[in-house]
């Protein structure tokens, strides 16, 4: 009888320990998951920003190329500027692009080259402290094709 009572006490004790252990496990998993999130989420968000940034840089380079090709068909500095601005105006930027503009047009008939630089201002999908807005610049050089060969 005594033995039986002792056994019951031990069982109760182990049950309590097991309950404690389960609670402790759950807490520990929660902490680990939270820690994981704290590590993974910033990495994931940074990845989103990186992808968005790369996409914007890519489209800016496309735009600079298109603007330079357009300006190459112009006959003066002013018309080259106008053409480049037209190209930029008619582009459809991705949602995160806040502003896009022609930064510089160098029309050099002596060298037979035109260079166009475009500036894109974009808002990162996940704002980074101090880097909520990023400006990226792309430039392209094309031969001027509008001027006739010398004769």
């Amino acid at each position, binding site marked *: 009888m005594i033995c039986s009572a002792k056994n019951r006490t031990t069982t109760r004790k182990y049950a309590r320990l097991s309950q404690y252990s389960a609670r402790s496990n759950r807490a520990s998993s929660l902490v680990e998951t939270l820690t994981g999130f704290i590590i993974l989420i910033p990495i994931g968000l940074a990845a989103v920003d990186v992808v968005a940034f790369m996409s914007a840089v890519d489209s800016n380079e496309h735009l600079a190329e298109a603007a330079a090709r357009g300006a190459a068909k112009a006959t003066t500095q002013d018309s080259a500027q106008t053409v480049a601005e037209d190209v930029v105006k008619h582009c459809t930027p991705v949602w995160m692009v806040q502003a896009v503009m022609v930064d510089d047009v160098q029309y050099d008939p002596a060298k037979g080259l035109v260079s166009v630089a475009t500036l894109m201002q974009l808002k990162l999908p996940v704002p980074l402290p101090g880097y909520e807005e990023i400006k990226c610049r792309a430039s392209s050089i094309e031969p001027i094709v509008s001027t006739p060969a*010398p004769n």
Partner: protein
Amino acid sequence: MKTANSRLVKKTKREERGVSLVLVVVSAGFLIILVFVAFQFYTLNSGSREVRNAVDAAALNVSKQVAKLRVPISDQFSDVADKGGLVGMSNINRIWGKAYLINANAEAIQKEGLANSYTAQNADQAYRIAQQCNDTLVETVTCKQKLDSFFNDIANLRRAKLLGANSDLKTVDGPGWDVAMVDRGAASNLKFDEKQIPKGAGVAPSSGGHVKGYMPFNANNKNFTFASFVPNEMPHLTTDSNFNANDARTNPVPGNPVPNAFRANGINLGTKASLSASASSVANPMHEYRLAIPHAYIKILMSNFAYWKVKEKEAAPKTPYGFEPKTVFGIKGYQLKNNRILNGYASLGNEYKSGTLLGSMNALPGNHKEQYERMLQRIKEIKHDFTMGELNAMLQSVPPAPEYIIYPVYGSQDKTDPKIRIAPIIPGQPLPESWMNSQTTIDGEAKLIVNENEQRDEPNYCWPQIIGGNPDCEKYTQVSGTVRWAPGTGFNSCLGILIISRTTISNFITE
């Protein structure tokens, strides 16, 4: 028992904790690798695009710059060369245009049976000069070193930076550049009008008033092929399929014409990757010319002779007379029967009473239309839009004279703005333009084209003076003329000579 259980619980807890941590680390690592791979992919993709765009720009530069290459040409064709006396893509069709006109003239001369020993010789020489210049230009515009240099002008400015800071874009090593003749059958940069071509000669195929490019045709048994340079087009990129379909090696055009398309094969040697790309571009010098022989002229020669006859026999030597009405004492003291003496007079030069060259040319009746048509066709070889009205007005503006020259003057250095002038030729004095003064050989025989109907007693008339007896004497004049045309090929600048010969015979019939 207690200790064993406790150890088991602790171990289980540690393992569970470890699993979560490993999962976090693996996930973080996976994400980082994913971002890294994405970045590398982006770098490669963008680098590849940079290379393609750079090769496109460099190819375009080749098409742009290749039109600046020039080669020299013989003096006989200096009038269709540029201001430096050179020939490039811009004016090679102009060279062929002049050679074609000379050969078309020669063909028409031969078909009319007016050829002499110089006709074929001059036509052949013109063709040879054009072909030689063309072949030299083809060699120059396909020269690998020159094309590489044009490519590198842009390639040096447009490196693919994403493939490495020291990446180097250059042309792929090989024997030479691929070239093509695209836009076959499209317009060349040489405008022409069918009225410029003499009757009987092969007419160049036309596309909207331009000679068709890369469309061989025949004139004077010679093959002519012009290069296509579509009007109002700038140098531009073209597709590889278009280039391949018109490749000079696999699909050549007879006559070795100057190619108008070039394929650039570029390779970017970078530290991260080496990528190659190719681009094809079409050249266009963006200059248009008119089919013409800029340094050419035609001449008008007029001569008048008076013949003096008594009873159908020549009573005095023939005498030339001038271009204004004048009384000429032609027969002086001609001995008649019964000691009578005849003095014969005539009023000559009345056909020039109008005081103008045009009036003088039309003074005697006859079908004069042909002489003006022939002159106009030849003048159109100098100035395509010269009209019959302008020709008449020009002939109306000057007085009659023994020799005239109709020639162009130019304000521009490339001789593309002709103004037609007429000037008398004064013996012993140089001709109005220095290029006219070289020795010329007439390369066509003269042909009678207008027979002016004989007129009696008009516009010239005669009268006798008889001394010592019966004054009866019948008299009349016969005034007639011919117009002959000696065509020229234009090789020696002479496109033709109009020869007008007038004759007045003063007849006296008495015993």
